[in-house]
């Protein structure tokens, strides 16, 4: 039996494992992917100070540190179920069953699809898949691509594809329907983009975004948004066009795009075809919570955090004894926040495993999560702090309801 088992070898899982191992606990980390690092592997961007954040290097150094500390790894191993039996957690994988008293779920996030007619054709992939092909496997997803869905993630990945010498024809919106909703509304998309305008290489865009803080200017911004889009890293970002079809005989050959009005409605007769050999769908990320759900954690739907999140406290403990969470399962944020959360989870586990004198360290690590969040270069949701407040209230609400049951 391992002292600690961690599901997910991404930034949160690795940092939690390292923290536990440093305190002398025996750690096993399980991941369904063949390489450690999780979503960190795909990341590559330039920071404001001019240095580069290279996810592969960060993953490698975390992994090597973990191995040096004696942490065991089971890669290529999907966990298909967990349950609590006789006071300890049982973790089921294809070939083996594992037991532990302290189980950390650091399962990260998954991508939401955006349905567009023709999206089932070979050559259509999620934007994250294109990122992994390019940055991790060094395989070009194609020669020329169109990205459907304009958000922080797709803008960052578009730049990465371009760095790899892949032509990105444009970033554009999906056609408005009952599923695409806000992601197809020019005003909503523009508003979310204003929060990442500091990343724009053009001072004009950075300046322009400051002018658009009020509603009137936003409406004007959408109304007068150039039909051919605004260029970011030489890639047209089109908020007044939407993809109405992906066409091709057995594989992607191109997309049909149409002009849309400020409310997202298609202007008929404006259709045009754009040739490309791959299409990326960028519907954003949501916390991957399947195992927490199977275990019986209570949840709350918090849009600011990307979806349903298992209730947990600042020490990363869930309502279930011996079950912890860290990283994007607690809300969509960057890798640095995930690493900081991993430290807190690791310290909480160590304390609950009987190591004393960690109180001050735990308090510091909780503050460090806040600081990291404040300094984050990429904010996936502008209201993430509000989301965390809602979560805190729900946790308190839960504690009150449990006390009532006991008395």
């Amino acid at each position: 039996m391992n002292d600690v088992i961690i599901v997910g070898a991404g930034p949160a899982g690795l940092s939690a494992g390292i923290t536990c191992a440093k305190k002398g606990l025996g750690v096993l980390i399980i991941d369904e992917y063949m390489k450690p690092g999780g979503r960190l592997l795909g990341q590559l961007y330039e920071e404001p100070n001019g240095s580069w954040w290279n996810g592969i290097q960060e993953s490698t150094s975390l992994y090597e540190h973990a191995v040096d500390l004696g942490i065991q790894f089971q890669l290529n191993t999907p966990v298909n179920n967990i349950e609590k039996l006789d006071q300890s957690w049982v973790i089921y994988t294809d070939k083996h069953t594992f037991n532990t008293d302290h189980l950390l779920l650091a399962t990260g996030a998954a991508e939401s699809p955006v349905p567009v007619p023709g999206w089932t054709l070979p050559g259509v992939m999620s934007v994250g898949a294109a990122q992994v092909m390019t940055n991790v496997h060094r395989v070009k997803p194609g020669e020329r691509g169109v990205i459907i869905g304009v958000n922080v993630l797709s803008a960052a990945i578009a730049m990465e594809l371009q760095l790899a010498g892949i032509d990105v024809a444009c970033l554009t919106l999906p056609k408005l329907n009952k599923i695409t909703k806000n992601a197809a509304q020019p005003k909503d998309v523009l508003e979310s983009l204003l929060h990442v305008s500091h990343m724009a290489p053009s001072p004009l865009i950075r300046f322009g975004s400051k002018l658009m803080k009020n509603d009137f200017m936003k409406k004007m911004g959408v109304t007068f948004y150039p039909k051919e889009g605004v260029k970011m890293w030489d890639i047209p970002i089109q908020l007044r066009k939407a993809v109405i079809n992906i066409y091709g005989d057995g594989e992607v050959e191109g997309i049909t795009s149409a002009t849309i009005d400020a409310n997202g409605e298609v202007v008929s007769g404006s259709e045009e075809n754009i040739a490309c050999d791959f299409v990326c769908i960028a519907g954003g990320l949501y916390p991957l919570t399947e195992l927490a759900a199977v275990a019986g954690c209570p949840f709350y739907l918090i849009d600011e955090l990307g979806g349903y999140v298992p209730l947990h406290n600042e020490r990363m403990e869930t309502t279930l004894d011996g079950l912890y969470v860290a990283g994007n399962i607690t809300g969509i944020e960057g890798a640095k926040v995930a690493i900081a959360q991993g430290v807190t989870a690791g310290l909480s586990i160590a304390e609950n495993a009987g190591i004393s004198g960690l109180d001050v360290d735990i308090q510091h690590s909780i503050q460090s999560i806040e600081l990291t969040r404040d300094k984050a270069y990429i904010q996936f949701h502008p209201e993430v702090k509000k989301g965390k407040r809602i979560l805190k209230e729900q946790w308190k609400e839960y504690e009150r309801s449990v006390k009532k049951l006991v008395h």
Partner: protein
Amino acid sequence: MTEEEMIVCRCEEVSYEELLQTATKYNCSPRELKLRTRAGMGYCGGRTCRGMVDTVASTIKAQERTQISLKYQPPIRPITFGDLGRQDK
């Protein structure tokens, strides 16, 4: 391809139109919409279309905040019957 014909659940080949019409006709909850159309009940376990089925149903009634609307059940990843039924020694 038209928007109506667009496939939402790839495993069970359920179209956008079928989901929308079923949801409207029966005032479906996400679970009822799933059971009536089989969307999300294929071999991928709903890992792709789950959110979309939820979203279509949410046009009828807002999503519940305190409960995940479409239940997760083990095994949450595909596994062979042989592996699932094995005896650990």
